[in-house]
């Protein structure tokens, strides 16, 4: 009975279009997940639950508030400082210097609330990705997105295993969990207002040069001419989770389909299509042990499974080890290592680290090195 919905979802997903090449552009990513190789489908029980797997809401029997959480992501320039020594001033040497160097800027916030198995989150995410490729006839690939909206989800559970039952203000992962087995399925619905511009332009071609010449004093007109557009769309996610727990040890299996069928946008401004939010199919398994003062977890994910990518690009492994106040995070995803630290002092949670993402099509084809910083304030959890 409970397997009908996921099977139907997967069957529906087979008929959906596979997204185009390049970086996997998820709607929102958890900084913690990124520092754990993004192996998070079965572990997403923090403020980013609704962006990974709505079934994870099935763990909830508490009220959780995440009023202020922001994250900023940038290109990891520390790994490539030589590139900026004696930086040239003329256009051609500049193009030579930045050839193949991905530039990434991101800022986002996802305030939300969970009320037992119901979750609601707002989000505002702005990210820009630029990279100049092809040394023979340079192409600048631009992917700009500014998303605002909300997502609401609910999980229905059978069984009681792995539910949080006790408030611990220091770290959510150390909350005691119930013993037993539980299966949850979750569904979420979201509304997205998207501004976007996605395209590949020849650096010495007429499109870019003409538009710059014609609209040099009007940035809005320039970006519209290059394909900037706005629109609104509704998306649906589905997830499932199964947990075997004895209260301290926990084995979790999970799968989710985000933006089932791909979320399309009804255009409200611009002439080019609003970049679609691609569908992503994810599956994961995780193991966690909690020794009260020390806990650790290991997780393994495969995603996205619906884009025809090599298995090596789908494989993600994550690990974390936690002491009171401090947690160390590490992972391996798409062939690249990630690592970081999280400090959690009462109402302040700070996290920072480095990770990489694949920008090409194949395994380890083009590495996008990035750094992320996350700050959460007044994050509270209460017993119902």
């Amino acid at each position, binding site marked *: 009975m409970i397997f009908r919905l996921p099977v139907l979802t997967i069957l529906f997903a087979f008929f959906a279009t*596979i997204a185009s*090449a390049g970086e996997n552009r998820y709607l929102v990513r958890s900084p913690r997940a990124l520092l754990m190789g993004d192996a998070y489908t079965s572990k997403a029980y923090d403020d980013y639950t609704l962006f990974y797997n709505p079934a994870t809401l099935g763990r909830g029997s508490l009220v959780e508030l995440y009023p202020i959480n922001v994250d900023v992501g940038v290109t990891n320039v520390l790994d490539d400082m030589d590139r900026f020594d004696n930086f040239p001033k003329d256009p051609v040497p500049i193009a030579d210097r930045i050839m193949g160097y991905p530039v990434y800027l991101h800022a986002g916030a996802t305030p939300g609330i969970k009320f037992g198995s119901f979750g609601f989150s707002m989000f505002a995410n702005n990210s820009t990705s630029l990279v100049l490729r092809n*040394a*023979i006839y340079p*192409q600048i690939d631009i992917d700009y997105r500014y998303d605002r909206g909300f997502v609401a989800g609910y999980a229905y559970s059978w069984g009681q295993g792995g539910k949080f039952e006790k408030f611990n203000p220091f770290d959510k992962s150390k909350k005691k969990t119930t013993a037993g087995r539980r299966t949850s399925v979750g569904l979420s619905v979201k509304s997205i207002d998207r501004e976007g511009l996605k395209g590949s332009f020849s650096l010495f071609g007429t499109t870019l040069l003409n538009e710059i010449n014609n609209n040099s004093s009007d940035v809005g007109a320039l970006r519209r001419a290059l394909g900037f557009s706005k629109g609104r769309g509704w998306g649906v996610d589905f997830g499932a989770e199964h947990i075997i727990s004895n209260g301290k040890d926990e084995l979790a299996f999970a799968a989710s389909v985000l933006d089932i069928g791909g979320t399309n946008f009804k255009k409200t401004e611009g002439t080019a299509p609003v970049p679609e939010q691609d569908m992503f199919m994810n599956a994961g398994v995780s193991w966690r042990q909690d020794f009260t003062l020390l806990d650790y977890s290991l997780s393994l994910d495969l995603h996205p499974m619906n884009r025809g990518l090599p*298995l090596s690009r789908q494989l993600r492994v994550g690990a974390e080890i936690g002491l009171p106040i401090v947690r160390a995070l590490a992972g391996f995803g798409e062939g690249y290592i990630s690592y970081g630290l999280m400090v959690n002092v009462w109402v302040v949670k700070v996290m920072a680290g480095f990770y990489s993402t694949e920008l090409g099509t*194949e395994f380890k084809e083009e590495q996008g090195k990035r750094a992320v910083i996350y700050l959460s304030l007044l994050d509270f959890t209460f017993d119902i």
Partner: protein
Amino acid sequence: MLPWNLRKIVHHFFSTQEKLWVLFLIFLVSAGCGKSTDEKRDDAILSANILLTKQQCDAAISLLEGVGRDVNNVNYLKALASGYACKGGFNVLRFYQDDLPFIGNPGPMGGFSRFGSSASMTTPSNSAYNNLQTAINLLLYAGGIPTDEDPTPSRRANNFTFNEAGELNAMLMYTILVQLGRYIKFYGDTNASGVKAGGALTSECFTDYQNLDFAPASTSGSQYDNIVDFLGAGLTGSCNLHTDVGHPDLGTEGNYNIARMCQGVILMNNLLAIFPSVIAGIAGSNFANLSSLESTLNTAKASVETHTPGSAAAVNSVYSQTRCETLNASNDDFLQTYFLFIMETMVQ
């Protein structure tokens, strides 16, 4: 089959529901979707551009050719043309930085022979020249224009949007400029200063000329009676006598290499058809010297038709190599006149 003890463990610790869960996850994992041809092509374009960032020309070409040519996809054509241009020694950054200052220095087109890669052509079948020509042909015949039809900008525009056609024309302009530089350097035997017949050969002209009579002045308005008359007018640099010889690879009087002469005609005609619209959209004075060539070349073309009527149809407005060779297979008068009034006067 699972080993006995593993099967026992699974049976002992996992319920039927959990086993179904694992089966469901295995189903998900094994359910990777295939990609359509268009998606494979998009992947190939991205991968090729990444390979070309590292100047891995052959790998990029192999990848793009492997997914099948798509003559209607501008990004595909630009990437594949980049691959062949890479093999052909072309680089637009080098063109902007090193070659651009030589346009008009010396004028009108002698400076083309001073471009960085012009001296790389040492034989008519030079591989870099051929590869760059492959890149040019991919762009010229974009949209599936048959090779025996003229790939005019208006024909290309019929198959693409305004911006897409503009993108093709821009890349064509850069590649044709570099290719024409090689052609002029090799067949004009220019020296390091861009002066014709200053190279290693003993030739003074692009090609040998028969003393072809021009149309009578009374009916056509010709200024010169015949080729010898024009060669003596001081407009053709070192090539000023009927006895002066041309590059041996372009043939001899009455036995011209039509295909190679047509290569020059096609490069020149397509450049003139493309560059005015392309540079109109480029800010700055980088192409100021090229801009002034438009009227010079149009005047020279008009002279070709005036002196040998019929040239307009046979050479001046021909943009396809195949057509040029067909139209001039049995009569080389038009090609001789074209070379005399355009090649010899543009490169002195």
